[in-house]
């Protein structure tokens, strides 16, 4: 077992930690209070939940290349499981969330992951698309009505802070600390996971399944593992979602949310933790920003030409999301994170060389490509760690998509 490593750079992390620690009190402070309302504490708690969701989605789709359009359904499983355990079996919330996360991980790995490990790209997309559309109907089945409460869903009373800190923290602050604490721990674990041999195997799987197989990676097992771990994160997020919202119903999360999760990882940056953070910001604030657009347009009327010719701007929501998605994939395939990380070294998207192309080069007898391939899969020299790799200057084309290491800032 390798010991857990703390991602660099430490100073930034310490200041970030201090900021996160004092954040729910900032709205009480004299000057800062003018900029940050109390509601932002609740926003931040939801941000933590969305961060877990985006990490989960990113592990599956961004790192492992398994397209999931049904992630909302998986999060819903975690939320429902927590709700059922708390509401009907009176299990304390933290235990219920942990159990629900474990259950969701198991279900995701075995029930979804094992069958899904036989499917490739588009087929998996169809199956998960069908899952998320069907899931509300499944939850409403009279057969399991006793647990899920049908169309009504599960509602509980607010979960307050335990006795000792009760007077000190209000409801929103307590939820903030719990969710943020869990999300941060899981993010650090995520960093370690993606920089382990598991993470490298997932990336190899994404870049070329056949290539990964030839490198000795047990493809079905790793696929199921990616589904399992991803579902665990999603289930955890679902439990926290339920705790923050105190309600879950069949339509709480559906295809639209699943789609937004996809938008989040794509515009944030596929396969990076930094991108997941951007994605979580997107999920937290997208509704507010979009809803604010008509008011904003109104205030521009008369000063900027043409604005008055665009009525019903709020109905263009779908066009904005879809446009963002298409433009990002076509022009900035590495997303916002890639944009931030690569500001110094821009190169066109088309120059990205896939692992498959290298594999073909290996077949053709190009041994330079062979060694790069081996290195990318972490099989080459054992001394090399994922975070310390540097391509030799003569490698030419630069790093491929497969070596997208995230440096958390």
């Amino acid at each position: 077992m390798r010991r857990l490593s703390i991602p660099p750079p430490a100073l930034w992390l310490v200041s970030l930690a201090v900021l996160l620690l004092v954040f729910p009190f900032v709205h009480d402070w004299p000057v800062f209070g003018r900029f940050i309302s109390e509601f932002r504490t609740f926003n931040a708690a939801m941000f933590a939940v969305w961060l877990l969701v985006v990490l989960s989605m990113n592990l599956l789709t961004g790192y492992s290349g398994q397209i999931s359009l049904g992630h909302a359904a998986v999060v819903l499983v975690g939320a429902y499981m927590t709700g059922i355990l708390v509401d009907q079996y009176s299990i304390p919330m933290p235990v219920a969330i942990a159990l629900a996360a474990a259950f969701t991980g198991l279900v995701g790995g075995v029930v979804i992951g094992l069958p899904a490990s036989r499917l490739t790209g588009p087929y998996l997309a169809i199956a998960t698309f069908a899952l998320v559309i069907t899931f509300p109907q499944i939850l409403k089945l009279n057969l399991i009505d006793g647990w899920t409460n049908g169309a009504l869903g599960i509602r509980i009373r607010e979960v307050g802070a335990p006795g000792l800190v009760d007077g000190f923290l209000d409801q929103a602050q307590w939820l903030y600390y719990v969710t943020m604490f869990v999300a941060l721990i899981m993010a650090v674990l995520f960093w370690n996971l993606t920089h382990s041999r598991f993470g490298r195997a997932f990336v190899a799987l994404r870049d070329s399944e056949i290539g990964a197989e030839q490198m000795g990676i047990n493809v079905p097992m790793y696929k199921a593992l990616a589904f399992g771990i991803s579902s665990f994160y999603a289930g955890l997020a679902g439990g926290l979602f339920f705790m923050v919202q105190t309600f879950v119903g069949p339509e709480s999360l559906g295809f639209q949310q699943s789609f937004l999760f996809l938008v989040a990882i794509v515009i944030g940056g596929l396969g990076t933790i930094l991108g997941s953070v951007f994605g979580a910001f997107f999920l937290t604030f997208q509704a507010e920003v979009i809803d604010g657009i008509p008011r904003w347009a109104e205030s521009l009327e008369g000063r900027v030409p043409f604005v008055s010719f665009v009525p019903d701007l709020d109905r263009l929501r779908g066009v904005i999301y879809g446009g963002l998605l298409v433009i990002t994939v076509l022009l900035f395939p590495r997303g916002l994170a890639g944009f931030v990380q690569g500001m110094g070294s821009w190169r066109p998207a088309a120059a990205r060389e896939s692992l498959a192309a290298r594999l073909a080069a290996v077949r053709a007898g190009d041994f330079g490509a062979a060694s790069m391939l081996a290195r990318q899969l972490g099989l080459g020299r054992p001394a090399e760690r994922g975070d310390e790799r540097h391509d030799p200057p003569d490698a030419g084309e630069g790093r491929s998509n497969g070596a997208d290491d995230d440096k958390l800032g």
Partner: protein
Amino acid sequence: MDSIVSLTGLWPDTAVMLAAPPWEDPSLFAQLIISGIASGSLFAILALAIVLIYRSTNILNFAQGEMAMFTTFMAWTFMTRMDFWPAFFVALLVAAAMGGALERLVLRPVEDGPPLNSVIVTLGLFTIFNGLALWIWGPLPKGFGPFSVFKGSAICASDVCIGRLSLGTLIVALIVMLALYLLFQRTGLGLAMRATAQNRLASQLVGIPVNNMLTLGWALSATVGAVAGVLVAQSVSLTTGTLFVILLYAFAAAVLGGLDSSIGAVVGGLSIGVLKNLSAVYVPPEVGSVDVAMAFLVIVLVLMVRPAGLFGRPAARRV
């Protein structure tokens, strides 16, 4: 009267219709199958459109339903100004132009990339078309009733009836399938398109204008989708959400028949229509409604047991 049973329990006052099993009420069973085939022909046409694109470009078009919805709204606009048939064909032309333009502008760059990129782009198109339609035509449903061409009373044989609209839909579906079959099997153009789908590089080497074939494939598929949209709008009023669930059934149909087989798409569509009807009636009410879940179940089962579908060719793995 023994088919009506009062279920005691959660809602003691509700009487729930329990359908008699097929051997006791064969005419109900036959009726379900006939109307299932009729609604299934809608799924079949949309599935055909999906298969057309998947075969030629290996792209799964999640925007297929929304593109059809969009062109149907356009058809509706045309029909408020001219007769049904001219408006219908103008809409088809616009749809073809739109499909071709989309392939050229948006999908060309992702055609050779990983499947994730093309799925993301078509999903983006999905919401773009949905949002645009909402913005242009608003949330109120648009009725095609005044423009309907399949009017008149249902045609009955003893107890079993079929509506004119259903019959018309079925006939149109068969015509579309036949036309596509003739195009692909009997014309040089179809041969070129098939060659492009099979091996792009080799087709290019023998002088087929591959890029034009791909554009044509999308144009054709958008046209077929538009036919499906107009037919759907004849039976239910048209909103921006109308084709969403139909897309799911069409996917189920395409998977069942095999994503690369047009005969499969039709057989799959008809079977899904029948299955949907049967599951709506014969699944006991204690279970709940399962018509959407049935489509999901079909997809999962087919992918587990025979991923290539009933008529598809098993995919070869390529590096």
